[in-house]
C-alpha cells in the first residue's frame, strides 16, 4: 500500500512538474512579461532595469522556483489582453466551469448506468439495439455539433430553453452559483447534456459489456440456482461487480469534462475558464494560457490520484494482490 502510494505520488509529481515547466516556458519565453507591463515608449535601458529588478535575469532554476511559488499562490501576472490579474480572472470564472462539469458528470452517470444495465441484461431487445446505434452516432458527432443541434431544437425551434449564458446567478461568498435560481438551472440543461453526452455513451458501453461478462460468471449462475430473485441477482450481485471500472472511468472522465468544457462553453457562451482559454489562445495571451494549463494540470493530476486511491479502497482484490506480492 505504501509502495503503491509513493509510486503514484511520484508519477503525479512528474506530470505536474512537466506541466509547470511548459507553463513556465510559455509565460517567460513565448510571451515577454516586460512588454506586457510597459508602454511602447519605454527605453531599452528602463526595460533592462525592470528586467533586473524583477529578477528576470536570474539563473533559470531560480526563476522556475519563483514561478512555481507564485503559481501556487495563484499569481500569474497580468493578462496581455485586459491587463487584469490573471489569478482573479480565472477564479471568477472557475465556478461556472466546475458547476457545468459536475452536472454533466451526474447526468452521464444517472442516465448512462441504467441504460447500460438494461442493454446488458437484454442484449437482444430492440431497445438495446437502438441504444447501441444511438451511442455510435453520439460518439461520431463532434461535441459542438450536438450543442448546435440542441440549440436548434430547444432554443430556436421550441423556444423553451436559453441558448447562451448562465441565466441568473447568485453570489455565495466568492462563488457564483446558478443552482439556486430557476433561470440558472434552466440555463444549465442544454450545456450539461452537450458536455455529458460523450461520457454517457462511454459509461453505457462499459456498463453493458461488464454486465454481459458478469452475467456469464459462475456466481451469478449459482445465485440463480439458489432461487434468488432476478432483482437481487441483477443489482446485488451483477451490478455491484461492474461498478469498479465504472467509478474509475467516471472519475477520470471528470478531468476530461473540465477540459472539454472549452468547446461547450464556446457554443453556449458560458462564462467559464474554457471560454477564457480559447480567447487567450486566439489573442496569444500567454499569462492566461499558462495559468489555465497549470490549473488544468493540477486538476487532472489530483483527480487521477484520487481515483487511483478510490480504486484501491473499493477493490479488495488489489489489496490482497499487493499483500501476496509482498509475502512472496
Amino acid at each position: 500500500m505504501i509502495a503503491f502510494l509513493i509510486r503514484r505520488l511520484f508519477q503525479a509529481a512528474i506530470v505536474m512538474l512537466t506541466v509547470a515547466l511548459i507553463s513556465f516556458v510559455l509565460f517567460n519565453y513565448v510571451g515577454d512579461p516586460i512588454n506586457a507591463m510597459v508602454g511602447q515608449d519605454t527605453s531599452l535601458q528602463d526595460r533592462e532595469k525592470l528586467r533586473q529588478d524583477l529578477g528576470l535575469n536570474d539563473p533559470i532554476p531560480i526563476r522556475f522556483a519563483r514561478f512555481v511559488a507564485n503559481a501556487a499562490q495563484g499569481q500569474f501576472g497580468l493578462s496581455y489582453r485586459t491587463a487584469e490579474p490573471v489569478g482573479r480572472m480565472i477564479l471568477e470564472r472557475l465556478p461556472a466551469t466546475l458547476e457545468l462539469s459536475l452536472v454533466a458528470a451526474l447526468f452521464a452517470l444517472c442516465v448512462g448506468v441504467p441504460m447500460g444495465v438494461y442493454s446488458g441484461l437484454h442484449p437482444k431487445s430492440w431497445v438495446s439495439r437502438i441504444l447501441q446505434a444511438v451511442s455510435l452516432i453520439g460518439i461520431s458527432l463532434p461535441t459542438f455539433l450536438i450543442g448546435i443541434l440542441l440549440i436548434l431544437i430547444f432554443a430556436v425551434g421550441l423556444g423553451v430553453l436559453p441558448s447562451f449564458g448562465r441565466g441568473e446567478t447568485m453570489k455565495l461568498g466568492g462563488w457564483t452559483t446558478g443552482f439556486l435560481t430557476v433561470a440558472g438551472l434552466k440555463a444549465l440543461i442544454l450545456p450539461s447534456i452537450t458536455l455529458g453526452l460523450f461520457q454517457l455513451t462511454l459509461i453505457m458501453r462499459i456498463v453493458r459489456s461488464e454486465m454481459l461478462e458478469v452475467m456469464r460468471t459462475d456466481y451469478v449462475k449459482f445465485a440463480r440456482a439458489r432461487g434468488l430473485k432476478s432483482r437481487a441477482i441483477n443489482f446485488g450481485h451483477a451490478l455491484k461487480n461492474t461498478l469498479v471500472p465504472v467509478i474509475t472511468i467516471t472519475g477520470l472522465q471528470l478531468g476530461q469534462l473540465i477540459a472539454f468544457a472549452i468547446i461547450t462553453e464556446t457554443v453556449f457562451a458560458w462564462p467559464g475558464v474554457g471560454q477564457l482559454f480559447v480567447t487567450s489562445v486566439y489573442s496569444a495571451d500567454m499569462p492566461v494560457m499558462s495559468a489555465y494549463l497549470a490549473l488544468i494540470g493540477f486538476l487532472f493530476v489530483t483527480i487521477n490520484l484520487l481515483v487511483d486511491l478510490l480504486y484501491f479502497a473499493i477493490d479488495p482484490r488489489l489489496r490482497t494482490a499487493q499483500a501476496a506480492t509482498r509475502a512472496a
Partner: protein
Amino acid sequence: MAGGISIARAWRKVSGSDIYYSFRTSRITVAAAIVTAIIFAACFAAPLIAIQDPYDPANLDLGVAMRPPVFWGGGWDFPLGTDDQGRDMYSAILYGTRLSLIVGFASVLLAMALGVTIGLVSGYAGGATDAVLMRAADVQLTFPAFLIALTLDGIVRGLIAQKVLPFDHDAIALPVIVLSLGLSFWPQYARTVRGAVLVERTKDYVNAARIIGVRPWRILWRHILPNAMGPVLVIATINLAVAIITEATLSFLGVGMPKTQPSLGTLIQIGNDYLSSGDLWITVSPGIMLAVLVLAVNLLGDWLRDALNPKLR
C-alpha cells in the same frame, strides 16, 4: 495481356481472403465504404464540379449574400444557398471537406511517422531512452489530444505575436494545424509499436537476422515493423475520424482554418452567428457533411479493428 492476368490473379487473391469476406458480409461496412468513396471522389474532383472557387476573394459577392438553398425557396444558381459573404455553400462545402480530409490525412501520417519511429526506438533501445520517451507519452496521454493541439496552436500564435516567426497566422494556418494535430496524436502509435517490438525482438527470426549481421535499423524497419502494422493501421483509421473532428472543433472555436480558407468547422462557425435569426443552412449543410464523413470513417475503422483481430475470427 500479362497485366490483365496479374490483375485477375490479384483480384482472386483479394476476393478469396478472410478480410474481403468479412467486408462483403457486413452490409453497413459496404455502405460506409461506398459513402466514403463518393466523398473522396467528390473532393478530388472539387475544382471540376464546383460552381466557383470559394477561396478566390473575387468570387465573393455581397449582393448575393445569405441566399437560401433550393429546398428553402432559393434559386438553382446556388443550390445550397450562400453565406454572409455571398460564397456559394455547395462549392464551399466541397472545398471545405477536401481541406478537412487533407488535414486529417496529413496529421495522421505525421503522428504515425513520429509515433512509429519513437515506438521502434523506445522498444529496441530500452533502458533510459525507453523510460524517458514512454513517460513523455504518459504525460501527454493524461490530457485530451484536442487540448494539446489547442495549446500548440496558441504557442505558434504567441511566437508570431513576438515576431519570432515572420508569418501571418492565416497564411500558415494549414501547416500549423497539421503540426498541432500530428504532435498530439503520436503517443498511441508509440505505445502500440513499442509493445509489438518488445514481443517480436526475442523471436528467432530477429535473432537470426542479428546473427547474420543485419543492422538494427534494418531489423526494425524491414522485419519487426511489418509484424506490427496491423494494429497501427487500425489506430490510424480511427485516428483519421478523430483528427477530422478535432480539426473541425479547432476551426469552430476560431483557432483553426481562417474564414478566407474555410474548412467544414469554419463554415459551421460562420453559420453559428445566424442560427437565432433562422438562417440555418450555413450551419446545417456542412454539419451534416461532417457528421456523415466522420460516421462513415468510424464505421470503417470499427470493421477493420474487428476484421484484423484474430480473437474474433
